[in-house]
């Protein structure tokens, strides 16, 4: 039976679903963006919020502080997650357990992970005691309440997120492709470079991008195991402060808009890179 052609009035049926989205998401979004163009607590139009953001170091430094924390972490996470998942790809006994361990941090959430980091990496925690015990260091390393605390927290969650995605992606690449390359004379490295990597590249960039923009919004770890006053004063920290300490919603939203713009630029760069290589299914078709 043929589907009757949709009439224009049929789209009215979408309204019950669209109205809540408009009310709960689109309206606050537009309202938030509009707030950034208004002076504090008043109506009217002004660019003052943006001018303040980009002239006062307390604000504009958040861009660099956030990126300085998040970008190196994201690359290191990618390297680790890729290496581990590449190593455990294919089917073998106990893979589910290893995969479970890798993904486990995602189920805990940042707060619990941060508490764990404090216990483990604090000056008299296990990590420092171990290093001092085997004589590598004399003084305990300061690994919490600073840049490194937040870095470690991001790393743990990032590796978990990336791994959970990469495991499936790697298994979706037909192992016959690598075997075909090997049988045609390619070494293991060449097989990786010319067959495996090009096929996983687009997926890899996509999850890398997602992870990066998620981490640009880092808040909990920056506060709890970082140093929110200086080194880990990220976008979210400043936005929260403006809103909850100074009740300056206009400035808070301005910070949020700059953060969103940064995320969009990052994702635009990554997707531009992604398009330069092979984008498509890596499974064999019949």
């Amino acid at each position, binding site marked *: 039976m043929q589907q009757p052609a949709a009439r224009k009035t049929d789209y009215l049926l979408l309204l019950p679903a669209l109205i809540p989205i408009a009310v709960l998401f689109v309206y606050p979004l537009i309202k938030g963006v509009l707030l950034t163009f208004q002076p504090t607590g008043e109506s009217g139009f002004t660019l003052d919020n943006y001018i303040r953001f980009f002239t006062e170091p307390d604000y504009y430094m958040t861009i660099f502080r956030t990126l300085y924390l998040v970008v190196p972490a994201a690359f290191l996470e990618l390297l680790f997650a890729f290496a581990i998942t590449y190593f455990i790809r294919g089917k073998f006994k106990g893979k589910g357990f290893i995969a479970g361990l890798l993904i486990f941090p995602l189920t805990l959430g940042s707060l619990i992970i941060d508490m764990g980091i404090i216990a483990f990496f604090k000056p008299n925690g296990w990590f420092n005691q171990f290093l001092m015990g085997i004589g590598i260091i004399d003084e305990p390393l300061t690994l919490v309440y600073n840049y490194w605390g937040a870095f470690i927290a991001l790393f743990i969650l990032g590796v978990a997120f990336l791994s959970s995605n990469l495991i499936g992606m790697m298994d979706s690449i037909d192992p*016959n*492709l690598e*075997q*075909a390359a090997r049988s*045609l*004379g390619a070494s293991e490295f060449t097989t990786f470079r010319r067959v495996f990597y090009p096929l996983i590249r687009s997926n890899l960039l996509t999850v890398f991008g997602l992870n990066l923009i998620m981490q640009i919004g880092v808040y909990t770890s920056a506060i709890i195991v970082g140093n929110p006053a200086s080194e880990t004063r990220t976008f979210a920290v400043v936005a929260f402060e403006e809103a909850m300490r100074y009740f300056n919603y206009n400035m808070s939203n301005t910070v949020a808009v700059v953060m969103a713009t940064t995320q969009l630029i990052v994702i635009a760069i990554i997707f531009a890179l992604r398009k330069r290589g092979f984008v498509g*299914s890596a499974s064999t078709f019949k």
Partner: protein
Amino acid sequence: MVQTFEEKTLNSTSTNVQIENLVKKFGQTTAVHEANIDIRSGEFMTLLGPSGCGKTTILSMILGIIDATSGTISFNGEPINHIPMNKRDVGMVFQNYALFPHMTVSQNVAFGLDMRKVNKDEKKKRVQEALEMVQLDGYGDRFPRELSGGQQQRVALARALVIRPKVLLLDEPLSNLDAKLRKDMRIQLKRLHDELGITIIYVTHDQEEALSLSTKVAVMSKGFIQQIGSPQDIFLNPVNHFVANFVGYSNFFEGSLVEEKGDKFLFKSKDGLQFLVKKNGRHRIGDNVVLTIKPENLRIVDKEHPDMNELRGQVLVSDYVGSTTGYDVKTENGQILKVNVLGLEPYPIGKKVILHFNPDQMLILDKE
């Protein structure tokens, strides 16, 4: 338009392949038991068997994906067990073709040449020739996803052949094609084999493919090689129940040879049926054997009472397919036999008939 490729660049060095006492165990299970296969250079060897019989395992060991537990595989007398798979010079066509989806047809075919650092001009020439050979010239710039299944398969074939492999391995290459295309590809494969004179090892579960393509067939079951021989050998003289069943025999009787009568044996089945059957050189009195007769050799005779080598039965199913009619006939002891009769003979369903078993056309088989 198809040239002879012998004098051209695609000809490959002939290689004979010996497989000696090859064993593969996966944990507790043995996938291949002591396989011995001798493949002469230029031979089209087919490993035939149902899934899980170990045929693909043997192919994987020749290719080098998996290592043998024991035994040797040699090319021209030289063991290759310890040569890594990228140095074996073995061409492989995978069941799902395994074309690189991110490369064009030309790049796919050229991959093996890149690995061999063939210079640009020669590479171009050889890729062109390989594509012509599989009748795909002009498709070089397409991507695999833009090709049909049959075309993809020919690309896979070109990619495997362009490196002038010592041996060409094919793993059920026709199983993903529709019936008509399968027949076309079968003819193409045969032509390529004749033109290139390359040693081919082919894996399939399709007995028709095996018989039509091969110069030699090894029938496998449960990790054991049951019989090796020419297609005619396998089809006309299957050695045991499994092989006979697999190449299309039906009508089996289990029992033993009880008496010698001139140039015939008297066979007695488990449920008391007796047949006279022509002797063969392999069996003697007392052997437990399986007797078989092809449906087309069973005859329906017009008479009242059965003599020796005749059974009463009743027609259950009549299946008219033009040149022949197939009947399912149920005998008095409940066994259902297949009978093929030329043309249309009027034996309606339910009719009582007498079946005649010609002693010269019954085969004595080993039990498995």
